[in-house]
């Protein structure tokens, strides 16, 4: 039995902030748009927060679903940033409790998962197994990332081009959600989930309050993270394909975690080189980072949603989702996406 992506939803704030506009606020000669390929990102209003964006995404997901909130058996919130406006970090109870109450998911169990940008993929891993074990029939994984406050801090604190807060300039705010349930079709659904934590590299990226200003910051050794992932992802993918007897040529799309356009391109080229495939033989890569920035744990679902909205996605497509996050977490979800639609 497989679980499948039954529906998805996304929320992005209205306010578009271009990279050009952002870089006018920083006293540093850096062509961020050229280096990252990020043209725009969305910034929340001051009254929006992780909760409101997660809630909006959950409601959008339900509007695309055959389920109502009261049908849900489990809600897992995977936000990195569990902020209530303006910037209060809620430690307990878990944010999923508040989401459950607001949605009216009366019979749903709830908990949060924290696993950096791999949060939603981790949520899929847990929910897929809860469904297969018969503990629940369905569930929602939801995330709201109020992450641009790290960018606000970076604009105040970055002094040089090489700065651990550089990656903070690439983030954007968003909420995302998906519902998994038992697939009625033996072909459609999640075939494989493989995720590992390479904890040797657990200290390459930290998100925490700033020790210079009243805000939250993100400190990243971006070069090292990039180097580790370029080296390890192709080898790990090869082992996953071999372990599960998969046919790599059958995959239509690849949706990696959205860090930067150039980084994604280099990652895909590294995979192509490892498998001795030309670029046109590799699954088509879907991106959203150019328009939305790195939306943290929501990024992969934002990219999927964008492709569905643009009608770029064939029914019954085989997709490989590529997880990459601080921890470091690397891994893959391989699935056949059936007739997944979002409202136009």
């Amino acid at each position: 039995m497989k679980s499948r992506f039954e529906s998805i939803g996304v929320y992005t704030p209205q306010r578009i902030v271009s990279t050009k506009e952002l870089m006018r606020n920083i006293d540093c000669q850096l062509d961020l748009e050229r280096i990252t390929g990020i043209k725009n990102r969305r910034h929340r209003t001051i009254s929006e927060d992780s909760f409101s964006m997660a809630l909006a995404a959950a409601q959008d997901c339900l509007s695309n679903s055959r389920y109502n909130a009261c049908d849900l058996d489990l809600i897992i919130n995977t936000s990195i940033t569990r902020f209530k406006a303006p910037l209060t970090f809620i430690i307990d109870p878990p944010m999923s409790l508040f989401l459950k109450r607001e949605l009216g998911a009366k019979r749903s169990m709830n908990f949060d998962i924290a696993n950096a940008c791999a949060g939603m993929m981790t949520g899929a891993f847990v929910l897929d197994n809860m469904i297969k074990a018969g503990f629940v029939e369905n569930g929602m994984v939801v995330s709201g990332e109020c992450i641009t406050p790290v960018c606000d801090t970076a604009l105040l604190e970055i002094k040089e081009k090489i700065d651990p807060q550089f990656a903070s300039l690439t983030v954007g705010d968003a909420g995302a959600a998906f519902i998994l349930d038992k697939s009625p079709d033996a072909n459609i659904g999640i075939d494989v989930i493989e995720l590992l934590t390479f904890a040797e590299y657990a200290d390459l990226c930290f998100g925490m309050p700033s020790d210079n200003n009243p805000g939250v910051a993100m400190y990243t050794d971006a070069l090292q993270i990039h180097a580790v992932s370029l080296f390890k992802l192709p080898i790990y993918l090869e082992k996953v394909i071999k372990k599960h007897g998969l046919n790599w040529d059958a995959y239509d799309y690849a949706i990696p975690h959205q860090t930067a356009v150039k980084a994604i391109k280099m990652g895909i080229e590294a995979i192509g080189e490892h498998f001795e495939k030309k670029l046109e033989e590799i699954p088509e890569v879907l991106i959203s980072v150019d328009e939305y920035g790195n939306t943290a744990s929501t990024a992969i679902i934002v990219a999927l949603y964008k492709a569905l909205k643009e009608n770029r996605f064939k029914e019954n497509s085989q997709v490989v989702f590529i997880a990459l996050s601080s921890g470091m977490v690397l891994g893959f979800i391989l699935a056949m996406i059936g007739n997944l639609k979002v409202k136009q």
Partner: protein
Amino acid sequence: MATVIKATSMCMGKRVGDSSIELAARAAKDCIEKSSVNMHDIEVLINVGVCRDKNIIEPAMASLIQQKVGLNLDPTEECIEAGKGTFSFDVLNGSCGFLTAAKVVDALIRNGRIDTALITASDVHPSGKQMPDFPFTHSGAAILMGRENSGENGFKKIMIETSKSGGIGLKAYCDVSAHNNRARGAGRVDVEADYGERLQQFTLSMISEYIDLKVLNLSCIKLIIVSQPSPDFASSLSGLFGFDENSVLNVYERYGDTNSSAPIIGYHIATEENLIKESEKILIISGGAGLSAATGMYQV
């Protein structure tokens, strides 16, 4: 086939200079050493600690604990091919975190996805100091769980409930913008005046519901291990549902409120002091903010 407990350990804080990561990692190393499990066979590490050192929002505390323990830090190509590697993440459900993670591990084991998992817990104030208005005793704990292919042992149904209305009872938070540049060491826990009473009533109603499921025969329960949100929470269960006071393990008297670690510490004490023997049945009960309550029967 069952999900069973292989080993437990605990680690109390020193009151100053404590760290949630350090306490969890020390408990984890001790737990692994005491067991017959090869640490490289641990496939999943779940951390259920509520508090986070320096209010770190990423990476997962579990990955930092994994790093501290030295658990499959950088699997080589050969290790990955042989299935040796650990996936770590945090499961956050307050003082019901352990039973929630146990439910997740049970699902993974039943599906044949994994054979061995480590659950860690710890709560230290983000400043590292035992602050006077911080209700949780600095503590950490770890529990190794694994597959047992035959027998009646292991976890039976785990139930987790939240109240449908009313206040959340307890809120732990950090207003990052209110501490100038010192928010890394800041954190507050606000407790509503009627939290203890309401939580007690809510937990009792959950236990009634669990009994109605007929998962357990109450007269067979040898020991009840309870989370410790107040001094009289454990003793309040005595006399109810036929539980006598000797069958309720009161960890609060020894350690105060150990929050996410409480169920593991309770089980650890029970085994260290020979309060439970193989094939005996215990009931684990947790309650906390939300309001939330969880319970599960375990056959030793």
